[in-house]
């Protein structure tokens, strides 16, 4: 169930790709419904549910009170009884008010029940910064979810993947955390990389959860990234073409983590840069590095470069925020460094 893209494929935003995926699944499966804050007439603060209310109405597109523990828990209860909820947590940054439902219930019930209970649920949420939304509205935090067993953790970097991964997520019998970076949504009111609008087939198709994509082939250095930062990595890879041959690996999901793809690429290049908008320490970059070190540290010809969010809260002023965000310049510098 893959789809082909050609010159005639229409180009849409990631937001549209996501809402279309949900709509298509809702048409075929009456058990799918959407719940969250401002997902109804507003269409989701970041557009993830645009148009759904008009088509499906208030019984299936449900605006909730500001009660994340309440409605995420309700999503779990509905899933346990056979429905397939798509629940939105408005910003990942709010997970602290409801994380118990997420990791102690949503993610563990299947295991605790010895496999007897399934929780087929998608929990989607906006992540990321870069527009001065400061310390409580700009984080990525995917490692905080990926560290806890029992949930898949997906974060697309482009519209095509977003649609295919969302369809896979809804059809998955497991809980799936679906993180969309605000910067990849293609919102009309936010600066964006042109890559946030791209070709998306109209038909339903899936992108498998757990398979990384070689987003740009190369042989000198492997740049591993996910979500929005992949777009920066691709810009850099294209810019450096002919100079340094950069392989960009878009992980697409942290759980499952495609360790084979990481090993295969680093086996080829021997050099590793990791670009991660989540906090640096105890996160994605360490796990990617450990994947190599567990296997064979001598694969690495040079020290690894980590272009990650340093271990500081997100500052407000633009000049401060861009000092700590992973940017193209920093990626370029890291590649230069790892190339020696």
């Amino acid at each position: 169930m893959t789809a082909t893209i050609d010159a005639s494929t229409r180009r849409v935003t990631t937001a549209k790709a996501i809402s279309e995926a949900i709509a298509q699944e809702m048409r075929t499966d009456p058990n799918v419904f959407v719940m969250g804050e401002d997902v109804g007439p507003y269409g989701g603060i970041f557009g993830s549910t645009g148009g759904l209310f008009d088509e499906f109405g208030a019984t299936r597109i449900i605006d909730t009170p500001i009660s994340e523990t309440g409605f995420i828990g309700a999503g779990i209860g509905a899933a346990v009884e056979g429905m397939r909820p798509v629940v939105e947590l408005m910003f990942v940054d709010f997970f602290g008010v409801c994380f118990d439902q997420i990791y102690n219930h949503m993610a563990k019930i299947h295991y605790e029940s010895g496999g007897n209970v399934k929780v087929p649920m998608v929990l989607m949420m906006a992540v990321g910064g870069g527009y001065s939304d400061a310390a409580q509205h700009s984080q990525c935090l995917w490692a905080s979810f990926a560290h806890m067993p029992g949930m898949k953790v997906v974060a697309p970097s482009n519209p095509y993947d977003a649609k295919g991964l969302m369809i896979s997520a809804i059809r998955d019998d497991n809980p799936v955390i679906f993180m969309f970076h605000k910067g990849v949504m293609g919102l009309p009111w936010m600066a964006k990389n042109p890559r946030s609008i791209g070709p998306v087939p109209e038909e339903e198709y899936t992108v498998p959860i757990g398979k990384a994509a070689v987003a740009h082939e190369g042989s000198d250095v492997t740049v591993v990234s996910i979500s929005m930062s992949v777009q920066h990595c691709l810009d850099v890879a294209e810019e450096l073409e002919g100079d340094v041959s950069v392989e960009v690996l878009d992980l697409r999901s942290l759980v499952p983590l495609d360790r084979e793809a990481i090993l295969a690429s680093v086996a080829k290049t021997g050099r590793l840069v990791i670009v991660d908008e989540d906090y640096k320490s105890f996160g994605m970059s360490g796990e990617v590095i450990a994947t190599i070190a567990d296997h064979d540290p001598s694969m690495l010809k040079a020290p690894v470069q980590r272009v990650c969010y340093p271990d500081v809260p997100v500052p407000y002023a633009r000049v401060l925020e861009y000092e700590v965000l992973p940017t193209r310049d920093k990626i370029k510098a890291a590649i230069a460094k790892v190339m020696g």
Partner: protein
Amino acid sequence: MISDDTRVQFYKDMVRIRTYEAALQRDYHADKTPQWDIGAGLIPGEMHLAAGQEPVAVGLCANLEQDDAITGPHRPHHLALAKGVDMKAMTAEIFGRVTGLCHGKGGHMHLFDPANHFSCSGIIAQGMPVAVGQAFAFNRKGTDNVAVAVAGEGAANQGAFHEALNLAAMWKLPVIFIIEDNDWAISVARDTATPIKDGSLRAAAYGMPSARIEGNDVEAIYEACKIAVDRARAGGGPTMLEIHTVRLWGHFEGDAQAYRGDELQEATERDPIPAYEKRLRAAGLLDDEAVAAIQAEAQAEVEAAIAFAKESPEPKPSDAYLHVFA
């Protein structure tokens, strides 16, 4: 009017639960010697027994059908048994056996029985939103089933309580919230944790009908739950009931309960089973022989369940890696 048969059945059901809890208590402590070690023995880990709270489970569940749901708290056995969870499978779970409800993965705080729509969780109050979601599913599927969330009076001070009640009321879902007020949250006395004496007042915050049921009386509990369940089934929305009950034993096994002082003696006197037995004897529904037969039957069933558990194999170590994902 509750029929005589039903009354006797209530008694039987309560005796069955008590017998179960007493047997677990016995076996829990049996092999933790010489130095008492929480992790040792055939039943390791924390153990929260519900002796004294049988009227809640029995009075409630007499109103429920198999496809109605319960989310229970960390103290779940009375509810599980009354809801129809298979005693053998449940006991095997508590003994950590592969024949257990969850093949030994869940343990006593995590009993999942999808056939009876029973589940429980060790995190305070977090089952309450889940029940709201089950009720949501019943509603969307057009059944007349109801979902019941059971939590302690301590749990009622947790944020999840507030969110769950508000959602259920806003969406008029078929949920019954049962607060088991046993006066204690571990060592913290109810009245030091909230200034209100009648927790059912909280339902007004959501425009939800409610009542506080005093007396730990299975019949009164049954009647109150009946009103709530009937209302929910008929589409009338949620109800909250705070039921004053009693925790006869420690919070968990091993709890010396020094903090209880005289109250412990007073609590013991509020044991609901002898009281109910007395009433049924007075009504001519029970006599020595009947009581002995009921107790014997309960004991036999419980010992059979325990024997089943003990005879069952342990899981294979490598099973630990299964069921992370479906």
